[in-house]
């Protein structure tokens, strides 16, 4: 511990930080050179010090990310916005300007507080809880596809993969389904719109409308409880105390952020890849009973919708061969760890039947994505219904729009496609959502699985 008191720039720090790599994941260049940067870092400095954004560590190697992510005793997710604890800055590098005094729910908390939040929400999000929603998700997908099926044209982002995750997230929160479009555009656009964009003022207005609806739903549920994740948060007690509204609102924001843009990003990319590989698409459709699970994990590994998280060291420590100091920050790159040839053979290729696919796309350790079971289910239900109803879809590469940067989400804004038209099977989206709202309300589907085990029954 003798070098603990050494001022910055002393040999001790130089020695600790001798593996250096200038890492800026927010530049378009990082997106274009992702495979090259990953290879360089994994070969020369799987943990590196970067001078970007005030200086922070970057973990790019699979073993290094694994060991760091699971060292919860030395890592903090805390975002101490008001300087009440140790002044740590949460999971984002750099600290986003838009935070506005709200931390990112339990993803920016440490145990034991974080654990209480997760325990309150787990019974809504476990595999047993999520499976109850399948009939409703199928009906949402059916309605989205019916809106386009007769035309032979669809934008997979606008017309399907933006909508279904949004509607389902609201249903699980206990919010009105038909409000999905108040949330949808701002929730996605906040990720892909750079500060200073000409579109920023319009988006700020949309964001305000979303925030107002969110707050009004929250206070309404507080006064007149109705089942869902929000009700669970309102009923959460830690040491007998209800949690501050600001923390609950931050958590709802986290659930919306986590529920919307990630599954959208994954599904859009998978559809784009399948359009480019029609033989693989045909094989996946034909062999789905045995191949769909593995293919889902492989799309998760390869496209890694949420490419990483930051942590702060809570004590001086040595992990994976590097010495860190209390207060230093590290970026854990799930996306780069997923491309490490030490764990994944031919890591930059998609192998739908890949074995031993222990990817990091839902994170590792105590902060594992709490929505992972929903993400997989919604992805599979959207994908298989597209394979069944639009089996010959061809995405238009000229119309596909990827996010300019992949610093926050590896997402897509547009994915137009053509296909052989087919017949409708039922009502359009608006009418379907009205019916599904009644289904949710009448059957208590937003209750936790501990209170309500039966799967939803649609129609009839």
């Amino acid at each position, binding site marked *: 511990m003798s070098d603990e008191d050494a001022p910055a720039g002393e040999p001790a720090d130089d020695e600790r930080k001798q593996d250096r790599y200038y890492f800026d994941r927010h530049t378009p260049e990082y997106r274009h050179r992702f495979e090259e940067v990953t290879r360089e870092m994994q070969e020369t400095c799987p943990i590196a010090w970067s001078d970007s954004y005030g200086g922070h560590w970057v973990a790019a190697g699979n073993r290094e990310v*694994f060991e760091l992510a*699971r060292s919860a005793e030395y890592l903090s997710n805390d975002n101490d916005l008001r300087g009440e604890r140790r002044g740590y800055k949460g999971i984002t590098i750099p600290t986003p300007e838009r935070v506005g005094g709200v931390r990112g729910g339990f993803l920016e908390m440490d145990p034991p507080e974080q654990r209480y939040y*997760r*325990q309150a929400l*787990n*019974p809504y*999000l*476990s*595999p*047993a809880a999520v499976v109850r929603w399948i009939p409703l998700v199928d009906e949402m997908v059916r309605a989205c596809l019916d809106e386009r099926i007769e035309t032979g044209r669809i934008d997979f982002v606008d017309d399907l993969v933006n909508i279904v995750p949004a509607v389902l997230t609201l249903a699980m929160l206990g919010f009105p389904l038909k409000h999905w479009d108040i949330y949808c555009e701002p929730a996605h656009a906040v990720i892909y719109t750079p500060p200073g964009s000409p579109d920023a003022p319009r988006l700020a207005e949309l964001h305000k409308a979303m925030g107002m609806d969110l707050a009004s739903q929250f206070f309404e549920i507080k006064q007149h409880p109705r089942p869902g994740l929000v009700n669970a948060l309102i009923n959460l007690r830690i040491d007998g105390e209800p949690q501050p509204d600001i923390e609950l609102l931050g958590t709802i924001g986290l659930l919306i952020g986590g529920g919307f843009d990630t599954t959208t990003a994954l599904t859009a990319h998978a559809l784009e890849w399948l359009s480019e590989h029609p033989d693989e698409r045909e094989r996946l459709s034909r062999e789905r009973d045995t191949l769909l*699970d593995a293919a889902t*994990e492989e799309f998760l590994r390869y496209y890694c919708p949420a490419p990483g998280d930051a942590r702060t060291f809570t004590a001086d420590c040595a992990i994976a061969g590097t010495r860190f100091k209390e207060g230093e920050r590290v970026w854990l790159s799930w996306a780069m760890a997923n491309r490490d040839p030490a764990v994944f053979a031919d890591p930059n290729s998609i192998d739908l039947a890949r*074995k*031993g*696919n*222990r*990817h*990091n796309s*839902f994170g*590792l*350790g*105590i902060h*594992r994505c709490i929505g*992972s*079971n929903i993400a997989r289910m919604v992805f599979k239900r959207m994908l298989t219904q597209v394979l069944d109803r639009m089996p010959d879809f061809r995405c238009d590469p000229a119309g596909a729009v990827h996010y300019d940067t992949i610093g926050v989400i590896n997402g897509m804004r547009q994915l137009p496609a053509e296909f052989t038209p087919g017949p409708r099977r039922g009502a359009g989206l608006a009418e379907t959502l009205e019916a599904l709202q009644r289904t949710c309300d009448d059957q208590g589907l937003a209750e936790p*699985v*501990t209170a309500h085990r039966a799967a939803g029954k649609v129609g009839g």
Partner: protein
Amino acid sequence: MKVRVDPQRCQGHTLCAMNAPTMFELDEVDGHSSAVSEDVPAGQEEQVAEAAHSCPEQAISLF
């Protein structure tokens, strides 16, 4: 072959149950896994080995 899930390491990724559905049970409330039995029945070894290999937290031990 025997199998065990370390409850301290398991975080509920569910890959084990995906690979060997008859051998791993997921908790209804938090999705964390446990082995249905410590002894792996004949014919299940390959699936269980794949489950262990696929676990993101490396929480499954075979012995």
